[in-house]
């Protein structure tokens, strides 16, 4: 691709791919912490798994994640219920907070994480996954991208490790990185949902309208089921 649009697309997809790999790098550190011998005991006994220092990854320079941790697969036979060890940045700049969602099925606020895509897809496929943008209803209550990978111990799926990136942070970071207003493009996920857009009519979170002009094949982003498309939308503001 040597056209100006082609160069623009190459630049954007490299930037997006870097962000995704950076966050998965953090997830890999959480994963390594789960594999320490003491942590593996916690998985079997229902005790604490992650070391105190894991949460400090959220304070690493240049960190994009707003939350991270481990979400454990329940094992009802062994009376090991739903549980998670997840920390979040406080939006007000206060100390890190652990996420304590409502895990009782009889509650209006029941956080049934085993049914979420970020848990279920790595469980089924054995591979890492990126979900979003979505409203993490009953969980963090935030608008997120969630990146997860399965944790398998002795051939058995025991849960997922992952990180949340707020949609706002993701957008701010990439827009700043790309500088100015790049040629209008949309980044779509595997549901045809807009993840990032520099075309004002293509709202983040919306689905590609059915029956709209096709955007063509687009350019895949390495390592994530997303595609980038240049769009020919006219601007809305005249000045």
């Amino acid at each position: 691709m040597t056209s100006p649009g082609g160069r623009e697309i190459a630049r954007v997809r490299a930037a997006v791919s870097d962000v995704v790999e950076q966050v998965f790098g953090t997830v890999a550190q959480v994963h390594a912490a789960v594999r320490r011998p003491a942590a593996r005991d916690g998985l079997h006994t229902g005790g604490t798994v992650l070391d105190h220092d894991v949460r400090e990854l959220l304070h690493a320079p240049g960190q994009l994640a707003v939350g991270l941790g481990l979400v454990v697969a329940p094992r009802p036979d062994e009376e090991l219920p739903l549980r998670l060890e997840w920390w979040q940045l406080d939006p007000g700049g206060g100390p890190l907070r652990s996420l304590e969602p409502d895990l009782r099925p009889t509650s209006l606020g029941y956080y049934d994480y085993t049914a979420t895509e970020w848990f279920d897809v790595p469980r089924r496929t054995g591979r890492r996954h990126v979900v979003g943008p979505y409203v993490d209803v009953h969980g963090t209550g935030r608008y997120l991208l969630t990146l997860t990978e399965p944790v398998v111990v002795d051939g058995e799926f025991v849960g997922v490790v992952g990180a949340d990136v707020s949609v706002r942070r993701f957008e701010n970071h990439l827009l700043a990185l790309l500088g100015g207003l790049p040629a209008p493009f949309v980044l779509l996920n595997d549901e045809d949902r807009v993840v990032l857009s520099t075309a004002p009519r293509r709202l983040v979170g919306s689905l590609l309208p059915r029956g709209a002009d096709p955007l063509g094949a687009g350019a895949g982003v390495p390592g994530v089921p997303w595609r980038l498309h240049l769009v020919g939308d006219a601007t809305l503001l005249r000045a």
Partner: protein
Amino acid sequence: MQLLSGDARRAVFSPLDDGALRSEAVVRRVGSAIALGLLGDGEQLPPEADLATMLNVSTMTLREALAELRKLGLVVTRRGRGGGSFVRARDDVLGELADARLAELGTTDLRELGDVHGAVSAAAARLAAGRASRTEIARLRDIVDRLAIADSVTGQRRAEGRYFIELAACAQSVRLTMQVMDLHLELGQLPWPPASDPGLLDVMVAGHRAVVDAIEDRDGGLARRLTEEHIETRTLWSIELRLRAGGDGAVAAREVS
């Protein structure tokens, strides 16, 4: 105790801002949280001082509210080590509380509540038609199926609340989702119409299924209109229940599951 940080919990323990009669407002808030399962049977409430701060009421007001909740039998207090205030989920008491609340309200209050519920939910339905993925649509259907087979008033209330909350989440909007949660804490203070007329549950289920069909067809205009009409009908049920109660608050033929 560790306080849960789910969104719906946030709504339960958020500051009260309705001014007068604050201890009664605390009683109502706790009552609806129990009715929706947000506070479970046997669950311990936060210490008095913390609870007072969260709800933005004085310790005195909070103590009045707890005394009333104890009198109603929705809270028991144990002294000494491991003591504190614990929730008792009693459907009969919740039903009486809801009837009493209905009798306090005017039909215009019910219309106002329905107007806001309709505005928020109809907007969410329209947006969801352009934003809900296949997975999310399947989840909405699953919730409506659960509503159809729920056999207790609390089970039905909960499934119904989850339907509207999920609808707002399908609109990809955190703000609409929070609004719907707050509204459901208020709606949870009122009688559940199918408790008086079980056939109304079928009307609700059919209404929600029609909206999900419209969302699946990505017909935002239809999803909005159907949601508006459905909630208008519901408002009329509440108003009729209120009018039947007359001046003394006794709703005819109420059943508590």
